[in-house]
């Protein structure tokens, strides 16, 4: 059975958390996507919301409709019938990025650390498709993984006070696009002109958990033509 290692734990008065694995893996993540859809379909009347992440799903329920014993039982029974499990065909979303020192002030440091040229760092970042593992931290902030080990970088020791909207960045083996201006400690390598969160659009995000993202380099002019803006970087103290 596929889901025998599933662990269900109490998270709060109206929440249980289901752990599918101890470490991040493509297989665990596919199971989480499958389970998230099953839970949504089958428990709509008792659910408040779900938060799928790398290795777990937080299940928030309405305690005036059900209780944690019943929810646990329902989850167990849903996950036991995993013979219908079929891996989901991920959608691939292509996102344009204006790479370069003007847009990516941390490119040089990554190049120095990895003993690659800036061009090679940019090439490695575009070389693969990234899984959307989780969305959180801020509306529209998608955690994408995993970047090649050669360009993995620890977070800045002092986060920037302000990271521009659209900044494409790396932290450890994760990469992401800042959906709006915010403070941040990730290493910035470029700028993406596509809105990652627009509350008035439908859908309001171009990606969802379980999709895949492929980055494609564009020129400065293409970036500006697509509505991108150039920003000043404000360093931390």
């Amino acid at each position, binding site marked *: 059975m596929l889901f025998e290692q599933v662990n269900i*734990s*109490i*998270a*709060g*008065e*109206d*929440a249980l*958390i289901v752990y599918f694995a101890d*470490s*991040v893996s493509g297989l665990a993540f596919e199971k989480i996507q499958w389970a998230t859809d099953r839970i949504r379909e089958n428990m709509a009347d008792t659910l*408040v*919301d*779900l*938060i*799928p*992440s*790398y*290795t*777990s*799903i*937080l299940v*928030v329920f309405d*305690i*005036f409709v059900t*209780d*944690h014993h019943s929810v646990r039982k329902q989850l167990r029974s849903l996950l036991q019938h995993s013979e219908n499990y079929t891996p989901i065909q991920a959608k691939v979303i292509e996102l344009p990025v204006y790479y370069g020192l003007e847009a990516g002030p941390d490119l040089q440091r990554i190049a120095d650390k990895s003993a690659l040229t800036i061009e090679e760092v940019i090439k490695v970042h575009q070389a693969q498709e990234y899984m959307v593992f*989780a*969305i*959180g*931290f*801020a*509306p*529209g*902030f998608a*955690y994408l993984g995993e970047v090649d080990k050669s360009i993995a970088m620890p977070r800045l020791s002092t986060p920037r006070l302000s990271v521009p909207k659209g900044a494409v960045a790396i932290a450890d083996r994760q990469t992401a696009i800042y959906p*709006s201006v915010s403070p941040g400690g990730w290493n910035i390598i470029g700028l993406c002109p596509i809105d990652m*969160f627009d*509350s*008035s659009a439908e859908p*309001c*995000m171009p990606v*969802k*958990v379980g999709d895949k993202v492929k980055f494609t380099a564009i020129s400065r002019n293409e970036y500006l033509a697509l509505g991108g803006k150039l920003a000043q970087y404000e360093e931390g103290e």
Partner: protein
Amino acid sequence: MSTASTGLGFLVKQAGVHTLLQDLGRFGRYSLGLTNGGPLDKTAFYWANRLVDNTANSCALEISIGGLSLIAQMDMVIAITGAPMPVTINGVEQALWCSIQLYAGDEIRLGYSTAGLRSYLAVKGGFQTAKVFASRATVCREGLGGISGGPVKNNDVLPCLSSVTEHHVSLASQYRPTYSNEVTLRTIPGYQQKHFSAFSQRMFYSSEFCVSQHSDRMGYRLEGKAINADIDGIISEGICHGAVQIPSDGQPIVLLNDRQTIGGYPKIGSVISLDTGKLAQLSPGAKVHFEPISMEAAHNLIHLHAAKLKATQLAFIN
């Protein structure tokens, strides 16, 4: 998605320290990274709406610390509950926890809280601001809800409906919560408890913590003896309301309505919703204790509380 405003309501003469429009919150959007928002003290919020005969999810003002002054642009029925703040209408002192008739041109002023931190002002019919993702709740960090995604500002007009009542009601004083400077937070253990030694857990439940000045709607930071986990972080996962995060400095953070949806610090347990409301009424320096409670006992308390709220009758005052 948006609701037409009447164009009339309350004119904000003085916005106060931190005043937010809130309904019960935004739900079902965690997958976009959107948090709940909503009133920090749900009980006081409930009574404000109930006193003007509103539905539970009506939009009201959450007034932190005070300093708010509004001018009514039409006749309206309101009620103010929560942390006691001196309230006057055209200079005449008013009672809290009861319905009040305002007439066009009246000026209502709230002074500063004398105990507790947050009061709620409901208007009959609820504030008629635009809904974003099915809610009027303001979450400043996300720039969503309210008038323009942030706190109420001077010269804003808070749209609402005109109303008149001849039957004023109040909540009898024995049913009103009291606001103190020390609370015990009943906490459901279980959340990654295994990462805390028996010693750390005992220390957590027997120590006194102080509310830090870095406390807000996202979370309340506490200061006290360091509680140590055997790990620095976990793989990022969903966080629920009331979760008690322990970062590597050992100082607990109780996550509230505007918390981030996912995070990577270990959690020792989760404070029940009846007590997060009490926590959010505390100012920096106030004292906090934690007490373990089983999920079953927590459910009993929450159901009992809901039943009592429903069964409590309001008193007619004229």
